[in-house]
């Protein structure tokens, strides 16, 4: 064996080792997938069988898709997440433009105050919000979930950073064409912000999809539940039907995992580029 060959073999050995480490890391999720295709009696079987190829049990999924409120919960999750993300992006873009590009007098101070609130635990400002929504009568509606999601300081910060370096020539060219500040923002700036908006959109999608505390305290009616809360109530109700729980967990993960796998490259890059600023 030559030196390069030995090198290659050690590299392969190391690679396989860390591949195994990665696999061990996601074992609970692999086990979830395997269990979701079993009968309840097989959940804790010994010896463990990964998949009973000759007798795969699809009935858990069938049950969830036809007889459980899964599809309602999925719809609610999609509705709340998509509407929240759209409004959050619009809000963050307009605010980010004001603080990053237009920079009115005092904008630096105001923004510093914004940033300071990042240290406040979110549980803290949900308490008064609960009291306020009760008074307004929007508890137990999707509005209670969507409204607080729109205003997000981190998103404003992210777009402010982008607009701080936005080329002024583009905007000035629009002014020369007779556009005002508003027209140039919506016609020129916003379309050119496609990349950071998409990045922020993906990150926000993941975060809002995952939210559990807000629906837990704001919602009571099970027909309004989003997936995380639905999962919790399902777990309480079907305490010992583990295969069904695993199938539901699988179904809840599939939408986000699909988004992630499709956009993985962009997602990773965006996380990396947002993180560097720290």
């Amino acid at each position, binding site marked *: 064996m030559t030196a390069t060959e030995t090198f290659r073999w050690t590299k392969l050995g190391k690679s396989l080792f860390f591949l195994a480490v990665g696999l061990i890391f996601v074992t609970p999720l692999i086990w*979830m997938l395997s269990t979701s295709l079993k009968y309840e009696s097989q959940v804790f079987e010994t010896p463990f069988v990964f998949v009973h190829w000759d007798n795969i049990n699809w009935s858990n999924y069938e049950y969830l898709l036809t007889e459980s409120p899964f599809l309602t919960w999925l719809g609610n999750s999609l509705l709340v997440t998509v509407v929240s993300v759209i409004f959050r992006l619009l809000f963050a873009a307009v605010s980010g433009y004001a*603080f990053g590009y237009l920079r009115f007098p005092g904008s630096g101070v105001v923004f510093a105050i914004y940033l300071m609130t990042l240290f406040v*635990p979110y549980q803290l400002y949900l308490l008064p919000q609960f009291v306020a929504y009760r008074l307004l009568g929007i508890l137990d509606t999707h509005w209670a979930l969507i409204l607080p999601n729109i*205003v997000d300081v981190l998103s404003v910060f992210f777009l402010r950073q982008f607009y701080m370096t936005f080329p002024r020539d583009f905007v000035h060219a629009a002014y020369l064409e007779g556009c005002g500040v508003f027209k140039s923002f919506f016609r020129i700036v916003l379309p050119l912000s496609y990349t950071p908006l998409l990045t922020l959109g993906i990150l926000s999608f993941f975060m809002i999809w995952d939210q559990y505390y807000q629906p837990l305290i704001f919602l009571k009616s099970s027909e309004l539940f989003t997936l995380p809360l639905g999962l919790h109530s399902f777990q309480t109700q079907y305490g010992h039907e583990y295969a069904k729980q695993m199938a539901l967990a699988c179904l809840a993960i599939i939408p986000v995992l699909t988004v992630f796998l499709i956009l993985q490259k962009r997602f990773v890059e965006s996380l990396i580029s947002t993180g560097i600023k720290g």
Partner: protein
Amino acid sequence: MYNRIIRKTRYRSLEASERMAGIVFAIPSLIGFLLFIAGPILFVFAMSVIRINLMDNSFTYVGFRYFQNLIEDGDFRKAFWNTFTYLVIYVPLTLLLGLGMALILNAKLYFRGIIRTFFIIPYVTTYIATLVVWNVFLHPTQGPVNQLLMSWGLNPPQYMIDIHWALPVLAVIGSWKDVGFHCLLFLAALQGVPRDLHEAASIDGASPLRRFWHVTFPLISPTSFFLLLITIIGGLQAFYQMALLTKGGPSFSTTTLTYLIYRTAFEYNNFTYASAVGVVLFAITVVLVAVNWIGQKKWVFYQ
């Protein structure tokens, strides 16, 4: 010459009109911030000194009595130490694991894309769904982990129903879920370390460990500091595991401050107590951030 003057005045007026428009653009932002962030924060301070009766929406001023009571309150003290214990496990574990995983992904390996995907999958999957899985996966008698350990003749712990194990297990699960984020940010920082610095140190005879400590670490210290803050703040806010897996038990062993807030506010309707605990949690966050902010001078290296 004439042209230039026109352009200058035009630009000056442009800047003025941009500033004016800036205020208009900032209005929705300011309103939203006041209504959903600043307002609630101020209101929560008020709520901690005013008792709200949710039945008839009446308010009574109670002063700082609730804060004084907290000091002697057994539940609060226990929750305080639980939060502290959680942090002590969660913060170092997440940071070290994240750094280790980033170092793996930064090495010359095959299948790097697949390994990376495995490492970040928990971070992008629905948290509650993974907790539903962990609940069965760590089932004390029948779960696959303990079945395996028992088949090796070991006497495995009872995890979520054991008062000594429950909180550490929740902290480890929290790390498992969040570490993908840390891994990616550390990876970004590592990729920014110039290779020639490493080679130079290598030629000077520095061992890999020394190279990491004296070359790599100073260069990734700003990222490490940022992640340290994020991890502390995130750790103080941990809630999902307690809510889904243990409900604060067994016998209060996993009731952290956030869970205490939830329970007193939304199960016992005691918003004054919950707000007082919330204010204390906020104060703890500020203190920890401030301490680290001052401490960063000792180890964070800005280029």
